[in-house]
Structures are given as C-alpha cells and as structure tokens.
C-alpha cells in the first residue's frame, strides 16, 4: 500500500511537468505524438526504483522523488555564467558545441571551426522541420528504460551530428552541457551518425555554472557507427554537489569498426550513466572504460551493457572507482553474447579503491552467454590503498598525502590509459587531477 502511494506521489508532479512543458517542446508533424508515446512508456513505471533490477542500487524514486519543472530558456546573464564554465572544461583543439540549460547556444559554440566533413544541426531545428519526420522518429526512439523514455518525451534541444561515409574529422567535437539553473530540470538529446569508414572523436562534458544548484539533468546520446568506422567517445561529468545527472548512451556499431569509449563521473549528488552498446556487425573492436570519483555523500552509478550480437567481436572493459567519505559508487557491467556471436572475446574488470571506512562500493559484473566457442571473463575487486606502497613512497620522501595521490592517480590511470588519443588522455587526466586536488 505504501509503495503505491510513493509511486503516485512521484508521478503526479511529473504528469504536471510534462503537461506544463508541452507547449515549449519543439516538434512538428509526428513529433508531438512520438513524445506522447514516450511519456506513456515512462509513466508505466515512473521514476526508476530499486525493484527494477537495472536500477536496484540507484533508486531514483527514493533518491530524487520527483522530476523538477523544466528549466526556462537561459537569459543573457545565464549565458555569461555559462561562458566561464565552458572555458574551464574546454578540451585542447576541440570544436565546442554548447548547450545551456538544455538549449543549444550558438553564440558560445565554435560553429565556424567545424570541418566540412561534418554536418551539425540543432535537435530543435530537426524536430521543427516537418520534412525530416522520419529523422525525428529515429532521434526520439525509446527503449524500455524509463529514464530514456522520459528524455525522449521532454528533450528540448540537442545536436544532430552526421559524418558521411569515408570522412575523417581531424579535431574532436566537444559537446559542453552547462547548467545554470536552480531546482529545474533539463533534457537534452544528441544524435550521432558516423558513416561507413568515418572517423570522429566526440567529447561530452557536463559542468555547472556558478550558483547553479539543485538541478536535474537528463541527457541521452544515440550513436550509429557504420562499418569500418572509428569513434572515440569521451564523457566527463561534473555537477553541482546537490544536483542530479542522468545520462544514457545508446550505441549501435557495424562491422569491423573500432570504438573507444571512456566515461568519468567526478561530482554531483546523484549520477547515473548508462551505456548500451550493440555490436551489430562482425569483427568490431570495443574498448569501454570509465572511472567514478566520489566523495562527500555523493552517489555515482555507471552501468555498461555490451551486447555481442554478431561473431568475431572483441570487447574490453576496465572500470575503476575511487570512493572517499560517505560516497557510494555503483558499477554494473553486463556482457550479453547472443547465439550468433561465435568467437566473441569479451572481458571486464572493475576495481574500487576505498579511501574511507564509510564509503560504499557496489560492483555487479554479469555475463549472459548464449553462444558456444567464446572467451569471456570478468573480475571485480575492492579494497583500501596498500599501506606497504604508501610507506615505500613515504620512505622515499613523499609526504603521506602526496604518496596517496600518486597511488590513486596510478590506479585510475589503469583505465584512463586505454584512451587512444594522447590529447584526450591528457584532457581526462587533468580533470581527474582537478578532482584529486579539490579533496586535499
């Protein structure tokens, strides 16, 4: 009885939120209907809760209770604050595309630096052009996951990025999401299409502006990666200490492609990053890695589902978590090997470093193997810093804090070093060091 009440409480405001937002949600032709269906999908469960296996460690119904009203369009003052934040997270050499409070901000973006090989449109533009109705359906596709359905229903803007067959981008594209608001929600959705043999590096950064507080960001990126294409996707998420970030990546890959994925969550009251990768062609190589850096009372959940649907694919996952204070890190890694996926080679390791007695780590590796002739493995460990190593470093002159830092850096470096681009590796390392320094 009580549970039903909780559900009703959680949903009533949301219904209002959708109804209230509807007039502001872009979309011509079939779009309003698609949104309606997406919202119905969402409403079947409401906010994800612990009785849903995939969300058992991150019970949004208990943790956030309700979805906040949609953020207003950012005004000039908000854009000024956003500009400062964009500068702080700008990756070297990257072409920046900025979204502020869920709305594309061309004035903060480097549109003129975009290479000829890429086409970028705002989601709003695509959805409002009825000639692209089919595109709209693709962009707003949903899954059974309520967070993604809610995102499809509520997305206010985002980016639609297309790289045609055979094109290679020289510079990374950095999508920067800035939150400036107080107690509001934002919904962004990006769509990336890499043609056959295309090459691109996408960096996605989430950052709060000064004074931003208590907001909820819900983002989704949908990527279609063609045969023989190569994609690096690096995501670094920071949020205000009382803010929520729910992000989903849905990636489908063709044959003989190469995927280099990395995600780092380093702040925010509650974070959930879920990555669903389908290896839909033969002979593709996937490297999916990540780091959670958690302190205070923060909660970060990284969930990666790798679906081997076709033969001869390789997937490697290395996940690391560093947990201090009363933080809680969740890692769920599921590898599915479909009956057709012969000669699959898939491994996953997840390791957590606990820096305090109160921190909590939940590691859930899962293998679901439905094919014969596969090589699959997983490993999970968690523990404190090795005192012997700390003493060795101290005996060489490093103060205790410095010794610990060096070891923590080396620990998360095991995952960061998997990023193939040196430039992006340095970018991620710098962000991680920023987190480490902040805790001193």
């Amino acid at each position, binding site marked *: 009885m009580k549970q039903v009440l909780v559900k009703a409480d959680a949903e009533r405001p949301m219904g209002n939120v959708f109804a209230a937002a509807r007039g502001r949600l872009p979309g011509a032709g079939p779009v309003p209907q698609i949104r309606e269906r997406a919202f119905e999908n969402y409403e079947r469960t409401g906010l994800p809760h612990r009785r849903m296996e995939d969300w058992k460690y991150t019970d949004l119904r208990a943790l956030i209770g309700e979805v906040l009203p949609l953020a207003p369009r950012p005004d000039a003052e908000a854009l000024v604050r956003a500009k400062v934040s964009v500068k702080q997270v700008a990756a070297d050499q990257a072409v920046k595309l900025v979204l502020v409070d869920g709305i594309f901000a061309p004035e903060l973006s480097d549109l003129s630096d975009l290479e000829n090989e890429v086409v970028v449109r705002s989601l709003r533009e695509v959805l409002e052009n009825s000639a692209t109705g089919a595109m709209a359906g693709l962009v707003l596709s949903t899954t059974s996951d309520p967070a993604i359905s809610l995102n499809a229903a509520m997305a206010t803007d985002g980016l639609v990025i297309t790289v045609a067959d055979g094109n290679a981008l020289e510079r990374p594209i950095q999508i920067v999401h800035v939150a400036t608001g107080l107690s509001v929600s934002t919904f962004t959705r990006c769509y990336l299409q890499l043609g056959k043999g295309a090459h691109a590096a996408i960096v996605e950064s989430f950052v709060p502006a000064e004074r931003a507080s208590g907001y909820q960001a819900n983002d989704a990126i949908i990527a279609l990666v063609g045969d023989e294409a190569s994609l690096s996707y690096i995501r670094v998420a920071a949020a205000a200490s009382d803010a929520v970030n729910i992000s989903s990546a849905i990636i489908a890959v063709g044959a003989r492609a190469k995927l280099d994925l990395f995600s780092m969550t380093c702040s925010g009251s509650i974070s959930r990053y879920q990555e669903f990768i389908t290896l839909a062609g033969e002979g593709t190589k996937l490297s999916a890695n990540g780091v959670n850096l958690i302190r205070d009372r923060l909660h970060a959940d990284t969930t990666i589902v790798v679906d081997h649907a076709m033969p001869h694919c390789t997937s490697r996952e290395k996940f690391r978590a560093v947990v201090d204070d009363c933080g809680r890190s969740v890692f769920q890694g599921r590898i599915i090997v479909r009956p057709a996926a012969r000669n699959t080679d898939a491994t996953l390791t997840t390791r957590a470093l606990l820096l305090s007695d109160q921190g909590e780590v939940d590691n859930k590796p899962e293998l679901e193997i439905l094919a014969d002739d596969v090589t699959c493995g997983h490993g999970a460990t968690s523990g404190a810093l*090795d*005192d*012997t*190593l700390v*003493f*060795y*470093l*101290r*005996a*060489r*002159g*490093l*103060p*205790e804090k*410095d*010794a610990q830092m*060096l*070891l923590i*850096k*080396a*620990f998360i*470096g*095991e995952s960061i*070093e998997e990023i193939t681009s040196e430039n992006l590796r340095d970018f991620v390392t710098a962000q991680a060091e920023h987190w480490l320094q902040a805790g001193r």
Partner: protein
Amino acid sequence: MMHFRGQIRMALLEIRDLHVGVEDREIIRGLHLSVHAGEVHAIMGPNGSGKSTLSHVIAGKPGYEVTDGQILFKGEDLLEMEPDERAAKGVFLAFQYPVEIPGVTTMNFLRAALNARRKARNQQEFSTPAFLKRVREVAGSLNIPQDMIKRGVNVGFSGGEKKRNEILQMALFEPGLCILDEIDSGLDIDALRIVASGINALRSPERAMIVITHYRRLLEHIVPDIVHVMSKGRVMKSGGKELALELEACGYAQFEDAA
C-alpha cells in the same frame, strides 16, 4: 658548520636503550648503537633477531610500538618525525622486498621523490634536463637499462633489478645514512657484485651505512668497519670485520645462549 676538533665526535645515529614491540610481543629489547659519519656497520644475526624490525623503526614504518628508548639522527629525535621527514633529513632504507608500483613510472617516481625532498629542505626543484641527465648517468653506472626507468616502478623486474633500483635511488637521493636491509637476498654472484660496487661508490666520510645481512659473502664485497651480532633484540657483540669470520666458523648459537 660546527667543529668538534678535540672533542668527542657526535654520532650521526645514536640509538639508546631501544625497546620495540609488535602486538604485545617485544622484538627489540634494549638495543644500543652508535654510528658515526664515514663508518660502515654490519648487523648480522639469525632470523627473528630483530634486524629488519630495527631498520623499519629507524625508517618510521607504521605498525611498531616504541615502548622505550631514543633514536637520534644528527642529534634530532627521529621517532618524532614522519617517515617522509626522516627521508628528507637523509635517512634512506633500501628495502629487503622493494614493492611494485604499477602505473607509476620509475622516472616519475624518482622525480616526485627527489623534488619532495628538495621541497622539504626549501631547495629549488630540479629542472627536468638536469634531472634526466643525472638519472641516466647513475642508471648507467649501475647497468640499469634506460627502458627500465620508463616502466612502472619495479613492475616485472627481477630480484636483481629491484635491488639495483634501490641503489639507483640511494645514489640519487644522496642520504646521510643508508640502511641496507638484506640487499644481498635473491642476488646471484654477478648481481651482487654490481650492487656492492654501487654501494661502495657511495661510501664517503660524510655518510654512514648500516648493512643488514645473514651472510658473510656480502661483507667480502662491502667491507665493514664494525660488525655487530644481534640476537633476541639486542646487540650481543661488536667487533671489527674479523667478527664476521668468527661467526661464519662458529655460527650464531653462542650468542643466542648468552642472551
């Protein structure tokens, strides 16, 4: 600089009536030791006599309880200092089992350690080219290949390589007191020769060394000025280098009986 001409020379390391326990078990039981600059002391003794514990306590390893006594280094109370402060003051312990640190290259580790020590002494940090040159020189003299210092600290190193890496650090940090805890364990004859010559090259009138070993073999390569026999947590006998020979002939049993 103070001058002690005509006076009793102050010991570099002075240990007085040291008592150390681990979990209610007393391991060092009233140990005295004076080590002067320029001297090489050998500490020999059977397993469990407290040799390694002594080296750990001087370096400041956590987990030991000093229940009584003093350890003075250049007249300062070492027991009041953190391990890194002791290192910055010039105490160096070459580990019996050097640890592997994956993800930290030897080069980065050396730079971090050297600069931390310099910072603690209010000295300027080493500039990179000068540092690299110095590391290459010392590594070369110890037959340490350049690619080894670009790898994770001791990761995948053989026993001999790990020990050479300890001597490399010792040479770079230029400590006033070197404690070598069973530096000969796990070394073949050739590796022992390289390590010993690296250590001998660091002998100087300003520096003292404490060489802890089970075997006289090491002391043929590193000839000590003074040999101590340790048993049951105490120095039972001290003498010249000939004491090592005597031990080889008669064993440790005579000292264990005396204790």
